[in-house]
């Protein structure tokens, strides 16, 4: 229930951001024009002449350029949880490198330290993870919008350790009374796991080069080194394990787009210009 509330809240928030974006449309475009003319004087001078010649060629059609680069983000859900949840410390950085018009190379690196208090067990999992994959942007941007609605595939690796802090013995017939929780210092080091995941997400450009987005992931464990006489209850990056091999995850990111080069996408243009 708590989870679904969290998701629906985030969803409403993001939808509201979409509206904000729609209203700001005109202002952002003018801002960009201003920025171009103001900052890079030499470049704009060259550009303006180019633009003029192009506008002559293509009548009223403004040449559209796609910006290529790297979107680096930080998972603020993990940071926020680190602040309010004393049993959690985590951080994750994401990166989307634009390969083609629709495809992005995706990478994520993170570290988590989670203490889980189950009714019968108290465990701490800590470790780092790496995810590599791609994102497909299924959203057709109008004009100079740069929003993303992505579907992606990733493969994740995690190396971690798990510590059993305390446990209880399940005794369905406690004639002599239920034995108390047994403290333990058992640590299982050098555990590894890898998984495949399908992700779907939204990344909205809220203002210049700043993105806010979230993504949901469905994961399937591929390899998992289980400790003897115990089980991996939480894998950093994969999150909580369930009886099957499936897991789920949630990212809420704030990202910054680092432009590297531009490509023109007007159909009449043949040679893509690199900057």
């Amino acid at each position: 229930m708590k989870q679904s509330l969290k998701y629906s809240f985030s969803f409403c928030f993001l939808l509201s951001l979409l509206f904000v974006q729609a209203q700001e449309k005109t202002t952002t475009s003018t801002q960009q024009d201003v920025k171009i003319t103001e900052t890079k004087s030499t470049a704009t001078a060259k550009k303006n002449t180019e633009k003029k010649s192009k506008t002559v060629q293509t009548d009223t059609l403004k040449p559209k350029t796609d910006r290529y680069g790297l979107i680096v983000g930080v998972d603020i859900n993990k940071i926020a949880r680190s602040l309010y949840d004393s049993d959690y410390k985590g951080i994750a950085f994401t990166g989307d490198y634009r390969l083609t018009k629709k495809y992005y190379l995706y990478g994520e690196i993170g570290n988590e330290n989670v203490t889980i208090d189950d009714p019968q067990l108290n465990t701490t999992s800590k470790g780092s993870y790496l995810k590599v994959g791609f994102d497909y942007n299924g959203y057709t941007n109008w004009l100079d919008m740069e929003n993303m609605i992505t579907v992606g595939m990733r493969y994740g690796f995690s190396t971690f350790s798990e510590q059993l802090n305390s446990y209880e013995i399940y005794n369905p017939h406690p004639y002599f009374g239920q034995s108390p929780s047994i403290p333990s210092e058992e640590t299982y080091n050098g555990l590894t796991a890898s998984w495949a995941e399908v992700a779907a997400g939204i990344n909205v450009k809220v203002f210049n080069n700043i993105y806010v987005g979230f993504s949901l992931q469905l994961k399937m464990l591929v390899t998992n080194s289980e400790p003897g006489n115990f089980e991996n209850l939480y894998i950093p990056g994969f999150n909580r394990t369930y009886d099957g091999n499936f897991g789920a995850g949630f990212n809420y990111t704030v990202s910054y787009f680092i432009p590297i080069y531009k490509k023109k996408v007007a159909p009449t243009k043949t040679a893509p210009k690199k900057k």
Partner: protein
Amino acid sequence: MKKIIAFLLILGFASSSCEPDDICDPNTPTTPRMLIQFFDISNPSLKKNVTNLKVIGEGMTDGVVLTPTGIDEAKYVTNENNVLLPLKTDADVVKYKFILNYGNKNPLLVNEDNLEFKYTRENAYVSRACGFKTIFNLDLNNPFTLTDSSTSDGKWIQYAIVAQNNITYENETIIKIFF
């Protein structure tokens, strides 16, 4: 765009509906009790029913529930040919009083014997919901000690043997008692 949002919504609900399964299924084999079977001393291959047997752990006032369907006192006595006795998960020894013909009006028929079991324990992981269970291994040299009660009414248990030392499941006979 609407399709993708709908897909995301479904995905979100699918992942949030994975509610934590934190309740231990009662059918999961967890900490076992020890199964004791009663046999006829004159015909050792034949199982024999006890009459109003009550089993009380040392230091306890109530008996072990032997007939879960029974009401009040009736649940502490059994007339079957087997009993399931819990072992201590925090000690390596447990002592039980076996009282035959419990509550009989003729005090001469009521007979009390003591059985002390020695074992080693091992905690084994079961699952996230169940945690750990304790499995037991009866001591190989000295698994049990049969003594008469302080009233010295003679032993009703004629003979007892260990059928199996490791107590892992409740459907495996551990001790055979002949009377």
